[in-house]
């Protein structure tokens, strides 16, 4: 689609935030977290080199929300909003969530309303993080699809590409912001992208397996690796909470003075009682079995069901794991077992 050029990000963000709320990544320690953008006080915004620390699912499926109220069906009341600074892994995580929550038979009206109200401005990665392994999970360090606008940093400024009708419409409505983009700038962008791709390839060379990851995990049913890996797990569930594709939730009922309500709250398959039924039976009583189920869901079951990997290789779970458990190391260990059994 159409690409244009802009010198600075501030005028672009100011224009977006003129009509709708805009969230931008802001450095917090060594990570980026989303903050409300305030055009009145903002100076030039720094483009995040990698994905923000928090997952984009927070904007689409909040940690806790009202799902139903006894005084009448709860209806989503969502105002249009924009999020800036998503990376390819974030965009692909939205594609995963779409499969679940926009399923034709039963759509989640709250997710649907937020999804339709969200204006997405993604950007290229230019310095992969230590834990990034998107290139192993069908990813690229630049947006492939699923964005309204994408930003690529080049020497003199930024290339802005429209990825949807909404994005195209924005560019057309703000002609004074942009200038034409030269062929030289486009090839500079392509060179930058290739450079980051190469760096990712180098960082993750040891994650290139002979056997597809699906097969590696599928064949790990009897593996003792899971029980061994969870020895340092403190069951904090951070891995699933911070994962941009983990979407499990549970419904619970509350009693207020004047009404009853159903709330929808994030859940985690790493939680002991996650799959327990009345009477106490629990297929995942053992922590190692819960870890196994988590990997099976991500790399096998979701792929079988929806044709998509449920891991986007963002590495957030690696960064967040308080017990030092590293998904990449688990995959490496499991891959060695496949070789032994062959």
């Amino acid at each position: 689609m159409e690409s244009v050029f802009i010198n600075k990000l501030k005028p672009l963000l100011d224009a977006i935030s003129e009509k709708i709320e805009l969230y931008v990544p802001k450095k917090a320690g060594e990570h980026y977290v989303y903050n409300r953008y305030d055009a009145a006080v903002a100076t030039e915004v720094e483009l995040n080199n990698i994905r923000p620390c928090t997952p984009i699912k927070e904007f689409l499926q909040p940690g806790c929300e009202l799902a139903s109220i006894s005084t009448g069906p709860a209806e989503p009341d969502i105002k249009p909003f924009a999020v800036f600074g998503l990376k390819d892994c974030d965009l692909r995580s939205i594609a995963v969530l779409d499969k679940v929550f926009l399923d034709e038979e039963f759509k989640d009206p709250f997710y649907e309303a937020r999804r339709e109200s969200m204006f997405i401005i993604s950007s290229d990665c230019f310095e992969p993080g230590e834990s990034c392994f998107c290139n192993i999970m069908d990813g690229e360090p630049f947006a492939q699809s699923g964005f309204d606008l994408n930003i690529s940093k080049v020497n003199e400024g930024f290339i802005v590409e429209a990825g949807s009708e909404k994005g195209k419409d924005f560019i057309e409505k703000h002609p004074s912001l942009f200038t034409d983009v030269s062929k030289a700038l486009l090839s500079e962008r392509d060179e930058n992208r290739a450079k980051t791709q190469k760096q990712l390839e180098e960082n993750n060379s040891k994650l290139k397996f002979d056997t597809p990851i699906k097969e590696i995990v599928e064949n790990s049913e009897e593996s003792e690796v899971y029980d061994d890996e969870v020895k340092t797990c403190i069951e904090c569930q951070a891995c699933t909470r911070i994962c941009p594709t983990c979407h499990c939730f549970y419904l619970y009922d509350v009693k207020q003075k004047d009404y009853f309500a159903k709330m929808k709250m994030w859940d985690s398959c790493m939680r002991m009682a996650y799959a327990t039924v009345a009477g106490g039976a629990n297929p995942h009583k053992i922590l190692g079995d819960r870890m196994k189920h988590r990997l099976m869901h991500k790399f096998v079951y979701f792929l079988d069901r929806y044709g998509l990997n449920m891991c986007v290789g963002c590495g957030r779970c690696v960064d967040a794991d308080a017990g030092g458990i590293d998904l990449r190391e688990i995959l490496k260990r499991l891959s060695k077992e496949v070789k032994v059994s062959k």
Partner: protein
Amino acid sequence: MSKNPYHPINGEIIDIIDESPTIKTFVVVPEEEFKFKTGQFVELTLPGEGEAPFTPSSSPAETKQMDISIMKAGRMTGLLHECKKGQEVGIRGPYGNGYPVDDFVGKEVYIVGGGVGLAPIRSLFLTLVDKIKDFKSVVCRYGARTPADFIYKKTLFGAWQEIKGVDIKLTVDEAKDGWDGNVGVVTTILSEKDVNIKNSVAVVCGPPIMMKFATLKLLEFGFPASKIYLSMEKNMSCGIGKCGHCMIGKYYVCKEGPVFTYDQIKNYPKIWA
């Protein structure tokens, strides 16, 4: 905007029947007409307290009210057992696939049940006997812990036994109260001569351990795994294939189940847990 699938319709408990020391049947009248297929389940809400999945035990032909038989097993079922007539409830659903009754036409239907597993089976049974001529026969083998633990006693020991084309045999784990029938788990009253396996389907519903051993027995008899229909019990919260809890492999039990052929799920881990 799509319809809110998390919002229940209102209903009222108009009658409560004590079936056994641990099981009660609640007769629920939904505010709106409520249609379901036999074997499908509903999410029953006790307002402000919680909700849990149950398969109605009444015939789907009855659309004005439904029976829900509930065993006291945990927090929600405990609260439901304390309810009185007139209690307001919420109903979401129906969810899941239900029994493929049309595929059973012309066949012998071999039903194996245990404990509260008779609840969904009663709905199926009533559906089958409603058109009993469509089926070669309906053969039921059902076990309870003690004679007092049988549910639907009046019809189970009476009217159902009289229906032409129906063959019912019962067993208890522990003989009490003058029981002179078979003693032993349900697999002890299964025989390969019960039905002509080549023209039969088997339906199994009950506690996981019973389902496991009944399935193994049926396989031993020569039933193909694709002809053994199992009602799987898993933790189901949303009922619409999103919340994740009920997964067996790639399947959501709440969506592609709760009725699966053994063939569909046999290779996945921990199906009986």
